């Protein structure tokens, strides 16, 4: 009997030719029913119309290393606006002959980030490595020691500034957000109310109002004679803003913990601090990785808002180039270029988040 069944399965009933292989895939995924076939044909036609002309504009008719005048004669994209101004777009007003310093600082940052990607490398040495690395980056940027000339922070700009605001913004906002979330879950009414008011207040207003506050109101808070760097003020605004959003995400994770976890920790005699550190937070923070990553991506994108309060971040340096009469009118090319930079940043963060989620997942 079994043999008959096996033979039957193996020989007699083969899937129809049209449902396997390339043809089968095409039929199943592109031409299933008249509506799908219609959609496929229309989209293919549109792609056929659009893609070659975009390709032509971007690569065939484009110019890569001309002056502004040369660009006006070209039929395609003017990538010269980027190649000609690359160093200004990337480094802003940083002294031209010193620009190797932020470059090395950025490579140091990328190297550290790349090395930290692997969770096996997460140990005490890496923490020291980061501390040392951040110190070295600061030293490189600012100078004033080891024969490096001092470069005031007013001259910092471009990609290093964007990265600086992002890295410090994200690393400082995360612990602050966790503390706020714990405060909001606290049983002490005074602390709970303070945290709730803070979180709801910040989440209700746009970031730009906080940046205005940092740039125009904050100096009024300080006694006379004390000034705080403009970059630091924007940085604080970004941290305070992001922390409120992280707090809400973490609260979701805390609420997802079952009572049993708290009770089990209590029955082991753990204090509040140890309960949170060893039992609750490791689980709660893990389940909120996906929303946390999207908050961090938002924060990274939102650093571009400092362009409005006249900090020369990547977006602002690009605009400065475009306001030059020579390069006026080539904004699409320039904006496309920095859009790609931002995209790469966000996309790699999102990918890493997905990877981390998979690695930390304890479900089988």
């Amino acid at each position, binding site marked *: 009997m079994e043999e008959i069944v096996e033979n039957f399965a193996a020989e007699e009933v083969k899937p129809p030719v049209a449902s396997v292989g390339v043809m089968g895939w095409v039929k199943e995924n592109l031409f299933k029913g008249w509506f799908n076939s219609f959609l496929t044909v229309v989209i293919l036609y549109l792609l056929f119309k659009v893609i070659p002309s975009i390709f032509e504009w971007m690569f065939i008719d484009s110019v890569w290393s001309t002056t502004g005048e040369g660009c006006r004669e070209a039929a395609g994209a003017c990538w010269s606006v980027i190649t000609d101004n690359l160093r200004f777009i990337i480094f802003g007003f940083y002294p031209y002959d010193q620009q190797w310093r932020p470059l090395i600082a950025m490579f140091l940052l990328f190297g550290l980030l790349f090395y930290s990607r692997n969770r096996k490398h997460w140990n005490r040495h890496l923490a020291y490595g980061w501390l040392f690395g951040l110190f070295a980056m600061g030293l490189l940027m600012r100078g004033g020691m080891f024969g490096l000339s001092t470069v005031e922070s007013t001259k910092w700009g471009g990609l290093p500034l964007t990265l600086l605001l992002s890295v410090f913004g994200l690393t400082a906002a995360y612990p602050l957000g966790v503390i706020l979330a714990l405060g909001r879950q606290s049983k*002490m009414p005074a602390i709970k109310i303070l945290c709730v008011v803070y979180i709801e207040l910040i989440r209700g207003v746009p970031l730009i109002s906080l940046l205005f506050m940092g740039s*125009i109101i904050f100096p009024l808070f300080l006694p006379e004679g004390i000034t705080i760097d403009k970059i630091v003020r924007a940085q604080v605004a970004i941290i305070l803003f992001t922390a409120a959003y992280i707090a809400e995400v973490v609260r979701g994770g805390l609420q997802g913990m079952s009572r049993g976890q708290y009770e089990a920790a209590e029955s082991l005699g753990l204090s509040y601090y140890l309960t949170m550190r060893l039992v609750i937070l490791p689980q709660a923070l893990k389940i909120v990785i996906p929303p946390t990553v999207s908050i961090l991506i938002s924060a990274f994108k939102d650093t571009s808002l400092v362009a409005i309060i006249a900090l020369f971040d990547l977006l602002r340096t690009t605009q400065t180039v475009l306001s030059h009469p020579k390069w006026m009118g080539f904004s699409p090319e320039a904006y496309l270029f920095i859009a790609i930079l931002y995209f790469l940043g966000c996309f790699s963060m999102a990918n890493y988040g997905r990877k981390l989620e998979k690695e930390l997942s304890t479900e089988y």
Partner: protein
Amino acid sequence: MFALSSASIEKIPFWLDPKKRSIIAQVVVLIMFGLLAWYLVSTTLGNLGKQGIATGFGFLDRESAFEIGESLIPYSAADTYARALLVGVLNTLRVALVGIVLTIILGAFIGIARLSGNWLVSKLAGIYIEVMQDIPVLLQLFFWYAIFYGMLPSPRQALNPIKGLFLCNRGMIFAVPQLHPSHKYIFLAFILGCVLVYFLRHWAISHQARTGKALPVFKISVIILVGFPLLTWVAFGAPTHMDHPKLHGFNFKGGVTLSPEFMALLLGLVLYTAAFVAEVVRAGIQSVGKGQREAAMSIGLKPGQVLPLVILPQALRVITPPLTSQMLNLTKNSSLAVAIGYPDFVSVANTTINQTGQSIEGVALIMAVYLIFSLSTSAFMNWYNKRVALVER
């Protein structure tokens, strides 16, 4: 109760008693908070006094002395700051409301496309979502503004893709029906239709409960909502006169003009937020289990009934909260208008701050207005959520 309790409690030092400790911690935090607040207020007042900056909202009644590019209500530089700020609020609401409607439509469309069985459609929607989410919205606004303001020709060479619509660096200008006394009545007829549909729906539900017969409510509603205004229009002799824009010197006269700033802001916000809404819609539809559809089919509902009667009501419950927060995001992001020169509330408030120097009041006003938007929306959504929430028995 227990003999040892009173004796042992006395032995516990106060810093180990959780209750006393919590009170002490709270008092300390409150005192620190109070000290900080007092310090900030006193230094700020001192600084303001030294710099000779006035305090209070007295400036609201003064003459603003600046023009605003576009306004929904009559406004001139001779009006007060309060009116200028009101113009800003209305401009913000205008871009936010139009943006929200367009975003929901586009977002739902892309979200459904993402779930399409057609590989090409689904992949394209996926690429759109990924790319749009990963580019800062401010950069997108600048991009569209550069296109609308810098790339389009001057009014004399305006693009004219369809009759009555012109695209140039002064914005988008299109023909609208010329004002006619019948418009008022057409609008009234539409309102009347809405009221009728509302009662019809109620009656149809109770009718179905009594007799078990379902009325084609949707078809009747469409007929009423379209038919009433149409009949009124025909009754007035079907006026078809259009107010066509005409080139007059260096600009267009007639028709309705949408400024390049408004167009860029609207387009940027809609394209950006729609990517997030699409994800919300996709997740919402996927959250409805496959069994629901099968159950609906097995009790004999037609395919056309399954979506509106079974899938959508359940999906909406999942979609509504994150959709609300996306709508609020769009409203808050509309404050980026200040970067491309659309006179929204933040932009007007910013000008006010620059003129009067009263930055604290200005920023406080900005925050207050957005807080009112957010809190009133959340209050409404909470009420709505309670209404549609699953009632478990």
